[in-house]
């Protein structure tokens, strides 16, 4: 098989595609600008809302506390982010919180009689509505003050009973996060990157697959090409390679842009425990492989459908179900604990996303990765085999379809 003609066809496909504003938009501008921009907008908005909530004063209603809780009352009144307002009765609390008159309610109930020595005689109840942001925030503030009050109370009781602070602290609970900045960064990248990556590759393949088949037919260049001295298989191969190239470029550019944006946007938000957002060079080949396989699978599937369309609009309609089908498996990427195994490696799209996720996390295992690559190649070969058969059909060459797009698809299988 001579590759010169394929090379020339591929060159023409790439040249005309990259001169097409819409292709450049979907393949370069969107992956580089849109999602990082959306992420920046999302985080800025979250920060703004968060800051607004922090500035807000929470209105708390409180039943008259028992005498020994007088210090707590003082603490609540002293806190400038709380406003203690006259008490609501139990029945009104729900209504008052819903209407916004109060954000949370504090009540005390006796749990043991005075005669029981050393017992905690009251329990404190925070009433709030977790579906309301301001009420949840008020409950958090109350929880923090009560925790601090409780610690002080326990400390003074311990001292009164002759228990030294050292002895008392033996029961103290402490935590230590052992993850490094790089591990935290990889974890966050592994959560976010594969999702955007799959969507971006699919979006790029969507447009280019329709444009290089149904689009050509609409512009009447399809027959020009079909009447040249090249086999139909070479024509479709060159087209497929260009769709795959553009999908891969879109995916890789998106990975790069997202990593850089997370470094610039999420990094400062994380504060002291700054995650390190970087991709080690050794994982790049695996990311490239997963991008090529994903673009190869999605591009082949989309072209196989779009080739039955008479015009661009029809092509979009025919590809839409496959597009949804391709991006559906990304839910698997978000399920905690789902890993790339010999089984998940057989699921198209998900396996490519998982391969990329594990490459970013540095947790992939070679046998599963090899199965994923092999399965991806087999999927692509299957699609190409189907395409090679379909392209020989006369109506594909001429575009003289009479039936509806989906009937055409069904007939092509006979």
């Amino acid at each position, binding site marked *: 098989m001579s590759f*010169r*003609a394929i090379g*020339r*066809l591929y060159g*023409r496909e790439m*040249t*005309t595609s990259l*001169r*097409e504003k819409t292709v450049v938009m979907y393949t370069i501008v969107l992956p580089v600008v849109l999602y990082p921009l959306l992420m920046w907008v999302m985080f800025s908005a979250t920060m703004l809302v968060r800051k607004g909530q922090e500035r807000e004063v929470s209105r708390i209603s409180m039943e008259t506390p028992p005498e020994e809780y007088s210090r707590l009352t003082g603490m609540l009144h002293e806190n400038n982010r709380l406003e203690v307002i006259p008490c609501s009765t139990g029945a009104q609390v729900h209504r008052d919180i819903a209407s916004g008159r109060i954000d949370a309610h504090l009540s005390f109930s006796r749990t043991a009689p005075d005669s029981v020595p050393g017992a905690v005689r009251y329990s404190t109840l925070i009433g709030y509505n977790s579906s309301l942001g301001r009420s949840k925030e008020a409950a958090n503030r109350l929880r923090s003050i009560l925790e601090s009050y409780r610690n002080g109370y326990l400390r003074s009781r311990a001292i009164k009973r002759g228990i030294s602070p050292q002895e008392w602290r033996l029961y103290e609970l402490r935590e230590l996060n052992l993850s490094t900045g790089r591990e935290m960064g990889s974890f966050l990248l592994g959560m976010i990157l594969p999702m955007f990556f799959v969507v971006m590759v699919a979006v790029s393949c969507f447009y280019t697959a329709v444009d290089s088949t149904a689009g050509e037919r609409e*512009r*009447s*260049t399809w*027959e*020009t090409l*079909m*009447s*040249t*001295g*090249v*086999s139909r298989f070479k024509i479709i191969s060159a087209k497929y390679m260009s769709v795959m190239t553009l999908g891969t470029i879109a995916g890789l550019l998106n990975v790069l842009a997202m990593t850089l944006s997370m470094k610039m946007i999420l990094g400062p938000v994380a504060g002291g425990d700054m995650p390190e957002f970087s991709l080690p060079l050794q994982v790049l080949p695996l990311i490239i492989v997963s991008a090529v396989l994903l673009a190869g699978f999605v591009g082949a599937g989309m072209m196989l459908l779009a080739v039955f369309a008479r015009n661009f609009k029809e092509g979009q309609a025919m590809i839409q179900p496959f597009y949804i089908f391709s991006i559906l498996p990304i839910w698997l990427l978000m399920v905690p604990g789902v890993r790339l195994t010999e089984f998940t490696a057989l699921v198209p799209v998900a396996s490519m996303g998982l391969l990329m996720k594990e490459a970013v996390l540095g947790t992939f295992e070679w046998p599963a990765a090899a199965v994923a690559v092999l399965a991806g190649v087999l999927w692509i070969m299957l699609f190409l085999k189907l395409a090679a058969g379909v392209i020989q059909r*006369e109506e594909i*060459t*001429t575009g003289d379809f*009479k*039936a509806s797009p989906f009937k055409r698809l069904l007939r092509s299988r006979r």
Partner: protein
Amino acid sequence: MIHSEDVSRATVTAENLTKIFHDKSRGEVRAVDGIDFGCSSGEIFGLLGPNGAGKTTTLRMVATVLEPTSGRISVLGRNTRKHPVLTRRSMGFYSSTTALYQKLTARETVEFFAGINGYPEAKIRNRAEDLIRSFDMESFANTRVEKLSQGMKQKVSLARTVAHDPPVLVFDEPTMGLDVINAVRTRKIITELRDQGKTVLFSTHVMSEAEKLCDRIAIIHEGRLLACGTMEELRRRTGLHYLEDVFLHLLREEE
């Protein structure tokens, strides 16, 4: 004007050529019904007939875009069914459904079609230069097709059709939709190609055009060949002078 390196005698023959389409509402449609013809190098062979007569279907079968339901087409001695790629390499096909890539320049278009049709790689650049000169395209050779006028596009289209210097040329209604100046220019180019020894298959529904341009004319109606010959032969057969009268006479005879 166009320098050809290979003007060897090329022959196209069609024997009992038939094309049947299946239409849900109309049933079996015989678009081409047992046509026979042959044309040789240095000849413009015209297919004349009204819209829907089967001219385009016939030429599409010659160009291997469509496959005949039955019958045989031979181009340069090769069976087109067995050698579709080689057939297409030896042929330039032009029709209203073969548009140009809007994003390529005129020069890129000519180079692309020369290369893809197997013109020797080392000679492509020179071939493109020759065509740009001979088709008078110097002023817009590096301009994208999308920015060209209709007349300029027509020149690029004709240049891309002959880019690989094919011995056989198929023109399906090449003057359709053109203004008088561009139509005359197109006819002049086709005549020059014939004079270089190319085999030219040409379809039209314009009687005067067929009369002026074609060396031999095949009159087609509803997929059937009504008559075939030189203008003189057709006149002798019908006893009428003008092609329009000849055509109407043959139609009446058929009915």
